[in-house]
Structures are given as C-alpha cells and as structure tokens.
C-alpha cells in the first residue's frame, strides 16, 4: 500500500522544484487540459548528471515520450521511467520558452513576458546557488504536442491532452525535479490559457 507523501498545486506560470528518491512515484495531472508542463531532472547527488533529450530519443529510437519511455541522463543512465500516461504522447524537442527566444519567434516586444527560463532559473537559484544557466538543457514538455514530419519539419500543434489527463513516473535514482508550469501565451502549447497542474508523490 503506497503512501501519498506530498500533493501540491502548481499554479499557472509558477516554478516548482522537489526531490524524488529512488523508487518513489510521481504523478503530474493536467487538471484543466492543454497545459504544457516544462520539466527537467538532475541526479540529486551529482547535478552535473542531468536529463538528456537526445540520449532519451537515441536510446528508444523515437522522438515522443509515453508509457515505457526511459528518461535518460547525459551519462546514458536511466533517471526515471514513465509508467503510466493517459495523454499518450509528450514532447522533448521543443525546449522551454525564454525572453530571448520569444523575441525571435514572435516579436521584439514579447521580451518582457513571463517565461519558463525565468521560472527554471529562479527555482534553481533558490534551491542552490551552485546552479546556473549552464546546468539547463532541452527539457521535457509534458502534455505538449510537437509533431515532427517526414520531410524534416517541426511545429507546435494544438494539444492532445485534456482535463484530468496525467503522466506517472518512477525514479530509478534520487533525482531533483524542476518544473515550470508554462506561461506561454503566444502559441497553442497551453491552449492560450495556462492552467494549474497537480503534483503528487508516493513512496512507491
């Protein structure tokens, strides 16, 4: 019988960071649907080891994340495995929004909008000032739909998630989870309406 250790609501546009120990199970719930949850992981004992999008894609020979996907580190070790997924598909190539990329993608006047990079940096520096931007890499976007095409294209498409859909992961080592509940208002990744996300943690 597993015990619920922690349950928190991450408000729209907010950062979140927590430790997940080996064997613990985490669930992220897209409470109102169509929310992008930008997520990154570190080895809690050695944060130089971190989630690697390209090693995850390369090892499973597939660009989308779903049940059975092993989230692989830059040292080619499994950090966590996705054990349940009622959404069906998650992105790991679209990265996180930032002031700087917003100026490129949309317009120079979008520079001062809130962004996932701001959330990531704030959460990391509040956690431990040894962290810096150099510790970040391409993240996971849970519940976000970024289809790749056979002719080499990539686009941000309308979400395939819905209210109450969730993803569950089990940790293979002690990890730090870093989340930005995406505040992006310029593309359909959050349905142009960012909403809360639920974080639940069980001991097994």
């Amino acid at each position: 019988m597993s015990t619920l250790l922690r349950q928190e609501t991450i408000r729209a546009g907010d950062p979140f960071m927590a430790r997940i120990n080996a064997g613990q199970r985490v669930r992220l719930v897209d409470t109102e649907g169509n929310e992008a949850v930008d997520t990154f992981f570190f080895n809690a004992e050695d944060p130089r080891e971190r989630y690697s999008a390209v090693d995850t894609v390369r090892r499973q020979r597939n660009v989308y994340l779903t049940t059975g996907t092993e989230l692989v580190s830059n040292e080619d070790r499994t950090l966590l495995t996705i054990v349940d997924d009622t959404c069906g598909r998650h992105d790991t190539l679209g990265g996180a929004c930032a002031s700087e990329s917003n100026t490129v993608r949309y317009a120079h006047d979008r520079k001062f909008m809130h962004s996932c990079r701001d959330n990531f940096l704030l959460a990391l520096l509040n956690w431990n000032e040894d962290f810096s931007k150099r510790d970040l890499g391409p993240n996971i976007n849970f519940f976000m739909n970024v289809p790749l095409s056979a002719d080499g294209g990539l686009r941000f498409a309308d979400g395939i998630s819905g209210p109450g859909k969730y993803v569950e992961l089990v940790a293979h080592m002690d990890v730090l989870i870093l989340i930005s509940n995406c505040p992006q208002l310029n593309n359909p990744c959050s349905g142009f309406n960012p909403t809360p996300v639920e974080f639940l943690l069980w001991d097994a």
Partner: protein
Amino acid sequence: MPSNAFLLEERIPAGCHHALLLKRGYALRLTDLSGDGNVGLLAFNADERSERYNMADTLKAQHTHKLALGNVLYSDMGRPLLSIMGDSFGWHDTICGTTNAAMIEATYGLNDFQLARNGYYRNGRDGFLMELGRWGLGRRDLVPNANFFSTVTVDDEGNIALSEASYQPGAWVELRAELNVLVILSTAPHPLREGPAYPEGEIEAGVFWAGEVPATDLCRTACGENQRGFENAEAWFALPDGGPKA
C-alpha cells in the same frame, strides 16, 4: 569556395576532436572527404561562453528538425551563432547527440589505446570533454550537438533512422559566424551508425573570410524569425566596447 583560398586548414581524422575560434564574418567549410564521416558540433559565444548552441531553440524558431542551407544555429540567447551559407548535403541531424565509450565498444568492439595505440576507437562524449576542458568548459557545457553529414529521418509514429543519404563522398557545408564563435568539433561516428567497421575517413576543415552579411542574405531572409535573430546579433555589437551584452 576553392580550398586554395583557405586562411586556415586542418584535416581531422575520424573519431578526433578539434576546436577553433571563428570570429564574426569568417566561415568554416567542412568537407566529408570519404562520405562516411560525421561531424558533431558545439558552438559558444566566445565573448560570453555561457551562451551556446541550443538545439530546441534552433528547431522551434525555424520549424525544422533538420539543418540545411538557409538555416542558422541559434544560441540560447536568441542570436544566431552560425549560418549555413552553403550546403551540398541537404539534411544534417540535430536530435541524436553523440556516442560514449560503452556505445562505441558495443557497436565496434573493444579497441582501446593499449590495444591499438592511436588507432583506438574514440567516442564523441570523451572527445567533446577533452576539447571543452581546454577552453575552461566542462560537463555542464556538453549540450546536444548537431551532427553534420548524418541524415536522421522521423516517421509518422516518431521512429528515427539513420538514412543511407548520409553517405556522400565530398559533401560540404559552410558555416558563417554571426558572433565571435568558439566551435568545438568531434568526428566520432554518429550514434545510430552501425558497425562493425569503425570509420576511417578524414574531415577537411577550412576557414575563409565570408564578409559582411547583406540585407538580402539567404539565412537572414529565410523567415521572420531569422530576421529578428540577426537583429539580436547586431545588438550584441551595437556599442563600441561590444555591448550591450543582452
């Protein structure tokens, strides 16, 4: 670009690592002499090395998962580091990263220095670190690299595969620096390449002066995103001392 006009030239054997400082306006021409080559590339703003090539920002700004003529390699700070001003190849991989020692041994067998001296089978991860270390950088800076001369396709279900189109003897690509760029190269095999024979070909790396970027430049005008990216790069050099650094 005729090779006799190179200001600098190097032949990099398969598996090895190399770096060069490419100042704004200079270009690097890479040629896959054997057709079996792969060039893993990382790029940093030499004036502020926390700014570096960002795979995700490059892909989403240009709505692509391949790199080809007209694309730029974006930094994480909204500026192009390198522009693909010339390209005979057509589809360079961005989404597979590099190899490590265990992957190389699994694919090609054990062939370390003690066994093979300098013919040993080198891997991309260690090569990148050996080169990054020379420039004061380290594991935190080893981000997803681009892979030139390797084509990786994606099907409707998201499955990836290394394409036979990767084999093009003499294929070349020209990368023009839009900032002062530290370029880190690894010629270790692509992570999806199959064994058992470790590649043997060389990569030619030649530097030439590409000149000022005209308003009509192919990379700059490829999309509105790149127009704004080039404006961001120009802002980096807007003040005489190289500011405003943001």
